[in-house]
Structures are given as C-alpha cells and as structure tokens.
C-alpha cells in the first residue's frame, strides 16, 4: 500500500486529530534546546500543560483563592465551590458512581500509600498475600512491602513473558484463599504494555479479592471507566494528564472508603474533635487532612475540560499511529532493540542501543534537543526481568508528531555514529 518513499508525512493517517492546532496550545513546545527545536518525548514522566489549563491556575490565584471548607466569606465559598466542581469533573472523567468516591491526593504514589495504609493495615494480616506484577512501578511495590513487613504478609508476583505481557495463567494460580489484594498497573510505564485489567479484576472478584489499579500511565491515553472496570481502587496523577504536579486522585468504591482508616490526621478530615474522641468526617473528606493543593485540583479540573474538547478515540488513533510508526522505524535501525513488544501497548517505547549505555544515549539525544528518559524508570523488577540495568524510553502524547519520531530516529543514528 505504501509505495512512496518512507517519510513521516507519507504515513500520516488522515486522522481527525489536528495535532498542529493542539501543539499551538502548549507554549513549552515552542522552546529550543541546544539550538534545536525541542522534541519532547518524556510525557510518561510528566506531560506538558496547555495554555487554557495554565490560565486556569492564574485565574484561580488572582480572583478566587482562599482556604476551602472553612470561612463564610466570598472567596472561601468561591474556592470551595471550584474545588468541589473540580472533584465532579474528575468523577465524570473516570465515570465514578459518586463524587464522594474521588479523593484528591498529591499524586499516584500518595493515592497508593493511602490504600496501603487505610486498607492494607486494616485488612491484611500475618500470612496473607498481596499479588503484584513484575510490571509495577516502585510506587506500587514499596508501599505494599512496608505493609507486608509490618504485618507478616507475603508478596506474590505475576511474571511476564518475553514480550512484556503478564502471564495470565500464572496470575490466576496466584489468586488464593490468603490473597487480600491485587495491585496492577493499567499501563506499564517502562514498557507500555496495556494489561488486561478488566479480566484480572473479574477473576479476582470471583474470589472476593479487591483490586487496586495504578492508572497513572493510562489516563492520558484511553477512556477509563471505573464502573465498567469494576476496580475497587484506581490511582492516577494530574501531571501525567496535562495538569499540574502535586495533585492526583484516588478513586475508591464508597463501600471500601467507608471501611478504611484515615491516612493522615488533621483539619478538614474531622467532624468534631475533643481530647477524648474525634469523629471523622465523611468520605472523601476523611482522607483529605489539612489544606489541599486547591489551585492544583482546580487546574486539574481544567485539564479534564481541555481533554473533553478532544475526541479520545482520535487521541487513541493518533497514539497508535505514532507508536506503530516509531516501532517500525526504530526496528529498522541495526543494533537497536525495543524492550517490550506486547500486542497491546500505549504511549511508550523502551529501547537499548548495542554498545551504548542509555545515559550516553540520553546525553547525546539532548544535544539534538530530544528529551527522552533514561534509566530504570522506577521499575527495577522489569529491568531485572529483561537482564538490563536501564533503557532509553521515548514516550508520546497527543501533541507529538511523526516528524518528531523521525528526529528521534536520526538522533539514535547519530549516537551510533559517535560510538561507531
């Protein structure tokens, strides 16, 4: 079908996504780095913010800011209304049944720690088991190790095959009478593998086991419907979905959140306090002690609005185009190996260059204005599984283009030439 010379423009699908118009919304993408146009391929670590989202932050701070849930004055009531409005936007974004099931946290890590503390410490005991997968980010490993160590519980790990896909038959075998929780990432940050979380949740639920899904890498790439997934917990971060850092969400089924103990004590999470007894607030406020990052939460709401203006199906089609194109082009470079070749992937290509350490790759690509992540991606078990200390990782968002992939490919070839 494609007989024309292989350039990026020739394979640009006639997609509905107007990438150039969207790129214009992101001021940072106009930067030049080392004299070259910035090619930002590190959105899996943190994505960039579009102007309407940046503007929301400024508008909040300049016209609406005061502390929330406290005073009766105009600004406090405005800030409270906007903060709670942001919560409802997030509720709609993941299709939670009720806004009380949306807990604002500082990010995915904070959200998982909340579950480890609030659920783990209450419901996991000696001899119990926590099932995690090889693909987990350290944020979904370490909190559980802390619970396991404290309670005398055991962590069981679902292995992956050579393509970076979970071994489902092994997973099913690991679900036992002592399993108290399954923790699984929706999309692997290191390899891009999209895990079959819906099937995994169904299988766990057959045995009455709750499931926590780490959705940090999924929300920028696909529609997430927590009711359709039927997950018990879903954690994600604002700054990986075109919002600010310092804000994230823990979705939890109300039935679980009601039973869980608070993670942090303080103001706003109580109904009444005496030195004899404190009555905790209702959910979600029970989990939001102290003054939250109000501006960040409201700005994350604006990111949801921004995303609502783009058809997620078009984002996914664009995602697939970029990933397919980059996979094909990188595979064409002799001496370059893609780590993670799962059937279903989103947003990430990890690769190694023969004879060149990833840090040398990253430093030399930076000379070309290309930003990739190098290292173990906070997923050392994945690296160990593939017998490598580190990879270079290019990750994509809807604002990336096929010519940027060409720049990456040219950059990799240049690295090889330097090391010739």
């Amino acid at each position, binding site marked *: 079908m494609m007989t024309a010379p292989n350039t990026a423009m020739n394979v640009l699908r006639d997609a509905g996504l107007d990438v150039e118009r969207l790129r214009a919304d992101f001021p940072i993408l106009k930067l030049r780095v080392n004299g070259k146009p910035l090619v930002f391929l590190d959105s899996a670590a943190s994505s960039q913010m579009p102007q309407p989202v940046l503007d929301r932050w400024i508008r909040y701070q300049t016209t609406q800011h005061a502390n929330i849930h406290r005073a009766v004055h105009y600004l406090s009531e405005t800030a409270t209304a906007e903060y709670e409005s942001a919560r409802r936007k997030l509720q709609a974004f993941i299709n939670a049944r009720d806004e009380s099931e949306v807990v604002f946290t500082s990010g995915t890590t904070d959200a998982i720690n909340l579950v480890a503390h609030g659920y783990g410490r209450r419901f996991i005991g000696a001899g119990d088991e926590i099932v995690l997968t090889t693909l987990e980010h350290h944020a979904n490993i370490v909190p559980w190790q802390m619970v396991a160590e404290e309670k005398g519980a055991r962590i069981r790990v679902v292995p992956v095959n050579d393509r970076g896909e979970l071994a489902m038959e092994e997973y099913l075998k690991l679900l036992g009478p002592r399993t108290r929780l399954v923790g699984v990432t929706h999309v692997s940050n290191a390899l891009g593998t999209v895990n079959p979380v819906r099937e995994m949740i169904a299988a766990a639920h057959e045995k009455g086991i709750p499931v926590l899904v780490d959705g940090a890498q999924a929300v920028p790439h696909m529609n997430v419907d927590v009711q359709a997934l039927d997950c018990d917990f879903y954690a994600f971060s604002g700054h990986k979905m075109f919002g600010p850092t310092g804000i994230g969400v823990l979705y939890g089924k109300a039935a679980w959140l009601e039973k869980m103990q608070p993670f942090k004590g303080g103001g706003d999470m109580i109904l009444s306090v005496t030195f004899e007894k404190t009555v905790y607030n209702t959910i979600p406020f029970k989990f939001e002690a102290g003054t939250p990052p109000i501006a960040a939460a409201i700005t994350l709401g604006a990111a949801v609005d921004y995303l609502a203006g783009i058809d997620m199906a078009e984002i996914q089609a664009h995602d697939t185009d970029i990933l397919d194109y980059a996979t094909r082009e990188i595979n064409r470079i002799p001496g370059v190996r893609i780590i993670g070749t799962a059937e279903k992937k989103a947003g990430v290509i990890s690769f190694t260059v023969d004879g060149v350490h990833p840090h040398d790759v990253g430093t030399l690509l930076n000379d070309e204005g290309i930003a990739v992540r190098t*290292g*173990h991606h906070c997923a050392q078990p994945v690296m160990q599984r593939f017998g490598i200390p580190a990879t270079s990782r290019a990750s994509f968002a809807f604002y990336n283009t096929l010519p940027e992939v060409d720049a990456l490919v040219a950059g990799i070839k240049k690295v090889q030439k330097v*090391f010739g």
Partner: protein
Amino acid sequence: MQMTDSKQLYQEVILDHNRKPRNWGVLEGATHKAEGHNPLCGDHLKLTLRLDKNSVDAINVEGESCAICKASASMMTTVVKGKTRGDAEQLVQEFRDMATGKLDHEHQPHHLGRLTVFAGVRDLPTRVKCAILPWHTLHAALNAQESTTTEADADPMHTPLGNA
C-alpha cells in the same frame, strides 16, 4: 542550568578509551581491590591493583558501564600506573574537584594532564557520578574499603548547593 553541548565531552580520546579500554580485566596477584557500583544507572566496576613499595605497580579495571565511566576508568589506569600512593590519592581529589567544578583546570595548578578531557562533565550534573566512579573505587581500594558508590548521598552533585 546552561547545558554544554556534550560533544565537547564525547571527544575522540574518550570514545577511543570506551571502545578499547586499557588495562581491562582482573589483575593476578593484586594486593588491593574494590568494587564501584552505581545500581541506579547500572555502572559496575571491579578494580584490582598491586602496590609495590608504596607505588602502583599494576592496575586493572573491568565491568559494565556507560562510556563516560569506562573511559574515565581506562584513562585512570594509564595515568596512575607507576604513581605513588600519595600521588594517586592527589589525582583522585583533583579529578573529583575538576568534575564538580571546584577546580578551574585552566587557571589553577593541577596534575591532571590529559584527564582534563573530562572537564566538560561539570556541565552535565547527572553524569558527574559516572566520571568519578572509577576514582572513588581507586580511593576505596587504597583504603581497604570493599565497595563504593557515587550515587544518592555519595553523589557530589546531589547536595543542596550542587557543588559540595
């Protein structure tokens, strides 16, 4: 942070030592040895040396690492061979100072000679630990320390001021 074009760092001499590291392997009859390991990035060196009458009679390194670390290790072995223990330790300090920007190699006295090809690393704060790992490993070996690292708290660029 002003980023230097790293091609100033990836010079032919460094690339050459990366391709053909000198004194590579394990030394038979070593009197001193140490391992340098930066687990976060995967750099891992084994250093063996023989001290004879307080001089470095022979020194070998082997391991897996990035080009900056490997070339630094290779050039280090060629430079410290034949040096007294005291001179070797002085080079460790000077190399570290140059890499962290504390020593202005163009205007201050030093004994680094062609090791100044690594000066550009001071503009790449995340790579300083790569360049100095071999030197820290040498220091460890000379001081009967079994292993060392230049990551995390041991990374000189990791301090609040970035130049400690």
